[in-house]
């Protein structure tokens, strides 16, 4: 069983501070949806409003089509996995997992059996009688998931549960979480400030800033077609230019900067003073001869070897800094510090975007 969630014009104020500002989004049943944003952007407040620990100041939250305003967390069909997991240290593992059943009056034998089943589901058989303190970080993670699944929630809410794990384990748990979500079919709402997590696991991602939802789209769209400068720069790296745009009516525009004129994509209707040109480092090409368009003469500065790619920082003669990423596959010559080269990019790989908009 899984339920969809509708946030309808939801606002949440703390005193005079507006933590969540007119958020509208529909999350489909069985979807893996992530809210991505920097700390303080209001994503945790959204999670707490869905689980019932905070009430929206304005707007409506519906779970499975039903307005849940006024329902306490223990009445909602949601289960929250806390950032610090909040396992009960004085209970054994199986008591932790079956706590939700215990408070519903399920008898001990049934609870024990259910806990064993769930431990198998999260790949932790044989841990039933251990105490929380005897488990490793990744194992605690699995227990927290099992404990939440035990109450058969229609929606699982996860508040940055992987942030305390080391890199390898985090990557492993990403795949694990995704697999558990597919196996159970429960709607997952995931909160994170880690773009890698959000992009790798989610069906759709909502990027947030200052309490506002900036863009809701699937991970590819978020990365390839950000709607504004915030999304572009929060998700991935960019070379950024400031200037003035003159649209040519075909979806492209001429962009005049102090480093020369560029041509880039510009969606119709983009206006505003703070528009900038964004181009990804992996779309920035270094060559010995000038490119056909969007080409800048640069001097190579720092060359950083990152393993699977090489990050080359260059400075143009006019003072602009541009980073290019070269794949470490032997196909391109790695430049040396001090080399005089040309940095260029394709007009379709660059976008002219406003600073921030709200969906």
């Amino acid at each position, binding site marked *: 069983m899984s339920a969809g969630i509708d946030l309808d014009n939801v606002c949440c104020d703390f005193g005079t501070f507006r933590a969540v500002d007119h958020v509208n989004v529909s999350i489909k049943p069985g979807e893996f949806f992530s809210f991505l944003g920097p700390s303080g952007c209001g994503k945790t407040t959204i999670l707490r409003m869905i689980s019932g620990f905070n009430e929206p100041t304005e707007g409506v939250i519906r779970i499975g089509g039903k307005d849940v305003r006024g329902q306490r967390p223990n009445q909602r069909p949601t289960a929250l996995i806390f950032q610090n997991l*909040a396992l009960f240290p004085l209970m054994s593992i199986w008591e932790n997992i079956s706590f939700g059943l215990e*408070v519903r009056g399920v008898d001990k034998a049934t609870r024990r059996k259910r806990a064993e089943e769930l431990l198998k589901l999260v790949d932790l058989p044989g841990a039933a009688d251990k105490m929380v303190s005897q488990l490793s970080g990744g194992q605690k993670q699995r227990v927290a998931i099992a404990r939440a699944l035990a109450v058969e929630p229609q929606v699982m809410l996860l508040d940055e549960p992987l942030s305390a794990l080391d890199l390898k384990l985090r990557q492993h748990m990403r795949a694990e979480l995704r697999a558990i979500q597919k196996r159970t079919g429960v709607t997952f709402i995931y909160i994170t400030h880690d773009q890698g997590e959000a992009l790798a696991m989610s069906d759709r991602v909502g990027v947030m800033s200052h309490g506002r939802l900036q863009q809701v789209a699937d991970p590819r769209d978020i990365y390839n077609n950000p709607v504004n400068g915030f999304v572009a720069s929060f998700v991935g790296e960019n070379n950024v230019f400031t200037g003035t745009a003159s649209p040519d009516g075909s979806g492209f525009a001429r962009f005049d900067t102090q480093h020369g004129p560029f041509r880039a994509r510009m969606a119709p209707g983009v206006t505003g003073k703070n528009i900038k040109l964004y181009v990804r480092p992996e779309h920035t090409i270094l060559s010995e001869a000038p490119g056909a368009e969007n080409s800048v003469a640069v001097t190579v500065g720092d060359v950083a070897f990152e393993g699977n790619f090489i990050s080359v920082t260059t400075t143009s003669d006019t003072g602009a800094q541009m980073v290019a990423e070269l794949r470490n596959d032997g196909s391109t010559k790695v430049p040396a510090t001090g080399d005089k080269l040309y940095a260029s990019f394709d007009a379709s790989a660059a976008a002219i975007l406003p600073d921030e908009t709200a969906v």
Partner: protein
Amino acid sequence: MQDLFRRYGTGLTGTFFVLTAFWLLALVILPNLTLLEASFRPYLPVTEIGGPKDVYSFDNYRKFTANPIDSNLLVFPVTMPIHTITFLNTVIYSAVVTFVTFLLSYPLAYYLAKIADPKSLPTLILLLFIPLWVSEALRAFAWYIILTLNGPLNAVLTGVGILDKPIRWQNGVFTAYDAIMIGLVYTYVLFMLFPIYGSVQSLDRNQIEAAEDLGAKWWQTHWRVILPHAKPGIASGCVMVFMLSAGSLLVPAQLGSTRSNWFTQSIQQWMLESQDWNTGAAYSFLYILLCMVVVLLVMWIFKVKLSDIAK
């Protein structure tokens, strides 16, 4: 130790070391050892001290089980040695006092630790502390005035029509120990409140929220998550309030009725009225021993470890 000498010099460290040793040895250990020794010797006229009758025995301790009389324990009529009855009454009513202070303290401690606005917390705690600045004797006397026949409590209750005529509260409405229990609860409630407050405060708020999120009703969250976490605080609060109540002399002396007798009063009677320090000392040591047995027994029943209380 060497670190202290290095940091504060030989003179200062040595002085404080000697002072502390003097305090412990001369003012705590030696007097207690003297009393312990005296408790095994008979109470004799001065001329016979050191004489042939001055031999060690358990006679003083045996007085505890002498002189059976007919009396009541709570509502049950019993025939028991008079001082055993006093002891049992003291333990029973101290336990009631402990339980009542727990009932009063737990909700208040939970409120202070998890609900109250942190900004108003210093004010609230100050308000709780102010009565503690007044001496225990004065507070007992204040309750004596409140509960007296022409006192404010009777005046208010008859004034608003709850009572037809004033009650002699100190004689006891339910038991002969009512006034003593009121006084003890008032005097020692903070010794229960603060350990519980400390232990509830150390509980991660996410634990409470996780329980609620998993469907627990408020009392289930308290029973399964908050109370178990607060157990060490509750245990040390209970031990403190029980021992302080059982060992209190001022409050029972001030607020006791003609039918009440606290064991500390029995000891005082031996020591001051009978001038029999030997029996008084024997009763004191017996009392400490028996109270410790009671505490350890209760700790064993509630599965509390000594290390929990030391936290």
